[in-house]
């Protein structure tokens, strides 16, 4: 048994470059259940981050009682992380699930039956469609449903209702990944693969605390680091994360200055001739503009703006310029910070300049946050057109109209889809009166919460919320629909490196809860949405019908699913798309041939100006594109819009912790996980703590121009002048009054309503704040000691006080799991899974 709360990444299985990652099978069973007691194991994949680890769910007497990693799966080779082990079935098999629909009667939510609840929705929906038209409707979904559910929602929104107001919370987590790929390559689609970890000489992690956000992927890196010829590591992060500690070069940039650093790294490639001129000439456009853009970013200029050492910039650039195989990963440190799309495009540019794409060990992983974010992007529930189609291309709109047998004019394509921040603005103005939220919790996850709560409370708004639990957002709803969770329904989903998994139904949902798919199909039926020939718009009887419909939608598109079926997914490993006649085993890496999907008839987007988000449009695009070549998009750095001032002298950034997910609706209900990270905190550097006269555990107020937090302090290792707060903590488990945010520990009380002009992803990672001490602490803060939030390495002393009473660094107890955090690890003597056979080394 291993305590996998204390030992997050488990036992090392070192391996050398070019070998495949060895198998290790991680498993945990409910207390008192032995392996022999399990009735059956049901195939699935984990939905607690974007990694998509293949797993099997143990079932006994109709209940989920355990989980085990699938050793045959190409994603995880049998492993699971703490969230998968302790937050999967434990996060949904709880006593407080929603089991019956609720409707608002005289201001109160009361239980009712499905007929009543659905009729109420349909009545309002019809009335508004009749009197105000489709623009009165908005849909806000998630990154946590299944592919078939998104596709159903996409069809309902576009071909049934006909509204452009559709988005997902993927806007908050992964919109920039998709946008950066559209801008550079012409379409969404991950170039790199996890397999590249096995093959690379160097890894660059840009704003990506992989050790906490995708623990199993980090295990793969740790195992390479522990083996012969380990890859060289470079980390860009203002905090001293576990990644930073493992890195050869750690660039602890000031929050909000990523683009200055990126421009500096690119400049070094040019100056030192670390570029592949032949590749650039054959496969890219606009290199001169890129060269001119980065011209002024000498290492010294970068050092000045970003607060890092000029020599560190040179060292990092040299590693990029001279390594033979490089894998880069990018996540929220870039996506949720200033100039997000421009910074992420520069990562693409680094690889394009060296021609390091689609080859063994050389690739890019523009990461996702949530488990099924990829499918939201593919299926169009985030507003994009399904199958990576281009809303500005009439031919693409016609293809969908033919597929669905509807009039092309029904499908909104006169302007870009409305992003969520704008949807909420329309609600605020009263022009959207019907808002349907599925499986997400904007009352905690959106920026500037005080404003969001006011909007959810808008007079005249009809709000539908479907979820597992009565979330903070559900408390504002007119109708609440209880939904089936992971393990209680069947469907497929796709992870960061486009590997498709099937998740089979293991048990019945509690009470009257239904799958989200059933709810959408029911709405479509009751609304009587029809095709041009009069047939029902959605005549699916279950998820597999939906999957088949989706396959047709993807035929010939970059995300081609035509060669994948439920049958093929059962039993073996997940399969990476495109999988079709040409690539029957799927495809591990994209763009090995240097041909990019920028052809104007094929591309997903005609692109944007990175500074303002102004659309390029078809005319200009067609006049400038050279089909098949990638765009070297670039933009100069501009200072963030909220800089520290006398009144608010510190830079505020937000992020994740290893033991929690999203707004804790599942992980907060797992005893092992919640004990490890039970409450909110704020991290302050030793120097700032000293200056403020605070010590570990002291209660402080963190104030911005928009709100305040009241949380205990962790004195930790992050750059001076920077303050960090985890964003998971809302108030559903405060025991406070309904809908109240009186506890003030949601990190987004402080964040700004500002978004990247191109991806429309909110800027969560940059705000100016000040800190005031409220009172002495009664003990150390609840921040975990195992990862980035661990107490500062250097002991600290507050002026005139010893740290003893408040709980100094020496007295913070280590985070452990105890019996509830135990899991087994097995090391079977089997060959690791092969990747798609056509790409496996001979």
């Amino acid at each position, binding site marked *: 048994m291993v305590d996998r709360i204390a030992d997050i990444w488990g036992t090392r299985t070192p391996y050398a470059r070019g070998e495949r990652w060895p198998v290790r099978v991680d498993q945990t069973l409910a207390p008192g259940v032995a392996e022999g007691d399990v009735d059956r194991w049901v195939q699935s994949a984990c939905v607690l981050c974007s990694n998509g680890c293949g797993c099997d769910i143990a079932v006994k007497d109709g209940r989920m009682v355990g989980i085990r990693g699938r050793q045959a799966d190409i994603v995880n080779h049998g492993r699971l992380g703490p969230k998968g082990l302790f937050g999967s079935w434990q996060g949904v098999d709880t006593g407080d699930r929603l089991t019956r629909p609720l409707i608002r009667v005289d201001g109160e939510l009361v239980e009712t039956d499905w007929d009543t609840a659905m009729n109420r929705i349909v009545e309002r929906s019809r009335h508004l469609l009749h009197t*105000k*038209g489709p*623009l*009165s409707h908005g849909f806000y979904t998630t990154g946590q449903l299944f592919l078939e559910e998104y596709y159903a929602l996409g069809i309902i929104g576009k071909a049934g209702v006909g509204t452009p107001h559709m988005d997902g919370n993927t806007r908050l987590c992964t919109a920039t990944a998709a946008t950066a790929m559209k801008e550079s390559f012409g379409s969404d689609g991950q170039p790199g693969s996890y397999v590249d970890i096995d093959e690379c000489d160097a890894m660059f992690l840009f704003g990506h605390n992989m050790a906490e956000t995708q623990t199993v992927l980090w295990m793969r890196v740790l195992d390479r680091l522990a083996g012969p010829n380990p890859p060289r590591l470079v980390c860009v992060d203002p905090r001293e994360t576990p990644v930073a500690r493992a890195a050869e070069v750690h660039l602890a940039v000031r929050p909000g200055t990523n683009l200055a650093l990126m421009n500096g790294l690119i400049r070094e490639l040019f100056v030192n001739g670390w570029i592949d001129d032949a590749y650039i000439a054959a496969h890219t456009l606009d290199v001169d503009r890129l060269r001119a853009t980065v011209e002024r970013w000498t290492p010294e200029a970068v050092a000045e703006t970003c607060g890092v050492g000029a020599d560190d910039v040179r060292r990092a650039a040299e590693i990029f310029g001279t390594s033979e195989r490089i894998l880069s990963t990018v996540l929220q440190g870039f996506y949720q910070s200033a100039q997000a799309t421009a910074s992420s495009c520069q990562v693409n540019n680094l690889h394009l300049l060296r021609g390091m794409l689609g080859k063994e060990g050389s690739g890019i992983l523009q990461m996702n946050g949530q488990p099924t974010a990829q499918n939201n992007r593919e299926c169009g529930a985030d507003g994009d057109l399904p199958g990576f189609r281009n809303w500005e291309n009439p031919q693409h709109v016609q293809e969908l109209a033919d597929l669905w047998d509807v009039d092309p004019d029904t499908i909104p394509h*006169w*302007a*870009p889809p*409305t992003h969520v*921040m*704008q949807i909420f*603005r*329309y609600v*605020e*103005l*009263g*022009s*959207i009166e019907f808002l349907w939220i599925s499986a997400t919790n904007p009352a905690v996850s959106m920026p500037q919460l005080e404003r969001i709560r006011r909007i959810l409370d808008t007079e005249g708004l009809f709000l539908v919320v479907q979820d597992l639990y009565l979330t903070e957002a559900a408390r504002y709803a007119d109708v609440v629909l209880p939904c089936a969770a992971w393990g209680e329904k069947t469907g497929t989903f796709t992870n960061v490196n486009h590997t498709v998994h099937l998740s089979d139904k293991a048990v019945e949902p509690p009470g009257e809860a239904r799958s989200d798919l059933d709810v959408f199909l029911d709405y479509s039926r009751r609304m009587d949405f029809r095709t041009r020939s009069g047939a029902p718009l959605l005549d699916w009887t279950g998820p597999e019908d939906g999957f088949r419909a989706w396959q047709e939608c993807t035929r010939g598109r970059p995300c081609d699913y035509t060669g994948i079926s439920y049958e093929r997914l059962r039993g073996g490993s997940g399969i990476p798309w495109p999988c079709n006649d040409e690539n029957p085993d799927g495809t591990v890496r994209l763009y090995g041939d240097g041909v990019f999907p920028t052809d104007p008839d094929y591309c997903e987007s005609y692109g944007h*100006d990175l*500074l*303002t*988000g*102004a*659309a*390029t*449009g078809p005319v200009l695009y067609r006049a400038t594109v050279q089909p098949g070549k990638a765009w070297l998009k670039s933009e100069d750095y*501009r200072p963030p*819009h909220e800089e520290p001032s006398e009144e608010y002298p510190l830079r505020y950034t937000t992020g994740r912790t290893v033991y929690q997910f999203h707004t804790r609706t599942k992980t907060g209900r797992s005893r092992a996980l919640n004990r490890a990270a039970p409450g909110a905190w704020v991290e302050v550097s030793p120097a700032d703590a000293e200056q403020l006269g605070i010590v570990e555990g002291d209660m402080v107020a963190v104030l911005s121009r928009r709100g305040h937090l009241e949380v205990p302090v962790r004195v930790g290792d992050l750059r001076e002048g920077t303050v960090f707060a985890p964003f998971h903590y809302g108030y559903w488990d405060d025991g406070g009054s309904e809908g109240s945010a009186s506890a003030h520990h949601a990190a987004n009380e402080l964040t700004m*309503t*500002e*978004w990247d*002009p191109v991806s429309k992803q909110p800027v969560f990672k940059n705000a100016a704040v000040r800190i005031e001490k409220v009172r002495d602490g009664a003990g150390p803060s609840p921040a975990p000691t195992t990862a980035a939030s661990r107490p500062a390495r250097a002991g600290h002393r507050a002026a005139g006080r010893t740290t003893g009473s408040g709980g100094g660094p020496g007295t913070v107890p280590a985070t452990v799991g105890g019996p509830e955090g135990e899991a087994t690890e097995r090391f079977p003597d089997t060959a690791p899974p092969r990747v798609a056979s056509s790409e496996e080394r001979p």
Partner: protein
Amino acid sequence: MKLPVYLGLLHEAERILARSFRVVADGHGDEPDFHVILGTLAGQCDRHVEALEPVIVRFGSEVEGEEEHRVTADGVEEVRTGALGLLLDLQDLSVLVHHLDVMWTMVGQAAAGSRDRELLDIVVRCAPDADLQSRWLQTRMKQAAPQVLLVAS
């Protein structure tokens, strides 16, 4: 030579546009994206004003006595209210930007004809911004129009 007149008008028009962007950004402060992007666009105009200064010193800018040739609208002095007001204010900005776009083209022609390197460089640097500003306004207005014209109260 009438080039100085034109330079003077251009200089003035850029200042008016910068001010107008800021008036709209402040007046519609509840539109969360306006503040940032309109501020950026106003900054572009500020830079154009600055960039023009050396040639204005060199050529002079004889706007005086040429009042009858003035083609510059007054710019946006105050914003309208409501959703429709927002659309109309953006449209006003759009007209101003278009006006400037044409002026830059004319000045560019004169610069080419006179082979004045300094002026040509300024045109090459500044003129594309007008096109960008116009594309941003188009993008934003196209998004807003259906909502404003069909459902907003």
